[in-house]
């Protein structure tokens, strides 16, 4: 059995330095004033994909048909891949000796920065797909905007991730239409999912000081700037799906981005982080 690549140089910090030296130059990584906001913003990106990726991976082996099982597992895999890139960059920005794995497996709920939408339980396939669609429609707009980021490191992650997210939104919007405009049962379940999830969707578009700082630095758009394009996609798909857009406010449940979570996140982290908590430093 040949050695794994990262075992040829046992010094992980030296490896990280080598890796950083081969990356495109990005002055934002040396901006000490920007660091806290940039780090937080990168955690938000990485935590959204980590938690949603974990949630939909729960379907692995439980999907209603084999193709859906495989599709959900593949989507989860893509999102966990994005997490490695976002949290890897967050760790570089923080420059405190932590790695992407440390950030994923050793932060507690209050330090997690994902929106509450992605931590909600799967419930049934309708909720899983509707949540995926509401998120995917935002994800595509966010990553598309980030292609123009003033940070070359952020832009290259966005370019990589967007290729995969294009397939995610194609699938989730297709299924929202097929199930919404399907049988009475599937329509009722999709409408129920939309009604329950709607008050969580708006958090994706709420900005705070962190968002303002990274927007001012030219790294990312202000969250609210993505809303119009998201609504166009959502309205078109819901209309075709014969689903009724809820009339109530869509930003009732908020705070995930600042570390205030529903009771569901703790259960996810308990499962996700058990091994590293029980056996600190365990590795393959």
């Amino acid at each position, binding site marked *: 059995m040949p050695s794994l690549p990262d075992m040829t140089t046992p010094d992980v910090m030296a490896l990280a330095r080598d890796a950083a030296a*081969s990356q495109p130059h990005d002055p934002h990584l040396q901006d000490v004033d920007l660091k806290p906001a940039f780090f937080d913003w990168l955690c938000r990106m990485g935590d959204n994909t980590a938690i949603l990726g974990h949630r939909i991976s729960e379907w692995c082996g439980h999907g209603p048909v084999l*193709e859906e099982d495989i599709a959900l597992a593949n989507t989860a*895999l893509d999102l966990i891949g*994005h997490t490695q890139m976002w949290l890897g960059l967050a760790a570089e920005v923080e420059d405190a000796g932590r790695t992407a794995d440390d950030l994923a497996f050793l932060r507690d709920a209050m330090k997690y920065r994902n929106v509450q939408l992605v931590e909600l339980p799967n419930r049934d396939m309708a909720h899983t797909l509707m949540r995926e669609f509401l998120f995917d429609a935002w994800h595509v707009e966010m990553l*598309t905007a980030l292609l123009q980021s003033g940070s070359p490191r952020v832009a290259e992650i966005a*370019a*990589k991730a967007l*290729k995969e997210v*294009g397939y995610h939104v194609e*699938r989730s919007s297709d299924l929202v239409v097929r199930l919404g405009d399907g049988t009475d049962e599937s329509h009722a379940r999709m409408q129920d999912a939309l009604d329950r999830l709607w008050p969580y969707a708006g958090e994706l578009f709420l900005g705070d000081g962190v968002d303002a700082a990274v927007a001012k630095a030219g790294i990312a758009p202000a969250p609210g700037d993505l809303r119009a394009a998201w609504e166009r996609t959502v309205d078109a798909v819901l209309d075709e799906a014969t689903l009724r857009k809820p009339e109530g406010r869509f930003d009732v449940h908020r705070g995930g981005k600042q570390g205030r979570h529903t009771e569901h996140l703790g259960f996810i982290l308990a499962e996700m982080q058990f091994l590293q908590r029980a056996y600190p430093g365990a590795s393959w």
Partner: protein
Amino acid sequence: MTAMADPATRPTVDQVWDWLADVPDPEIPVVSVSDLGIVREVRWDGDTLVVAVTPTYSGCPATAVIDMTIESHLREQGIGRLRLERRLSPPWTTDWITPAARDKLRAYGIAPPVDGTAAAGAAAGRAARLSGQGLSVACPRCGSADTERVSQFGSTPCKASYRCRDCLEPFDYFKCH
């Protein structure tokens, strides 16, 4: 491995590329890592050989195995000091798969990508739905164009699942990326 420090005696970059042409992809062993276009650069940095590799899909579990295979293959050729770099930009595209590799994929039973059909985002998704997903993928077994998509996702991140309506065989499509 002090010989590697001497540019006159160390393997040339072209020689290393030749070696890499024999390193199989772990999941589709009929094609090599260079066939797939995922080796982006080979260069000497002093006495260290640097090989830049780009991931296919960002969460593809084969990525670590690919790195490991490249490393062990080059070590067998006597390369002592080696560094693998991960390169994200420009992101990998199936356009980089060589024509010869497309033939190999087809012979192996995997329909090669139809270039220029990647899902680029929301607009692509809407267009695909409204147009009834008009992509024509020929069956790699019987050549029939009368095929249908079963799922946009398949046995590995890079593949979609298709079925031939003529010979009735299911097959993998290496989807455009």
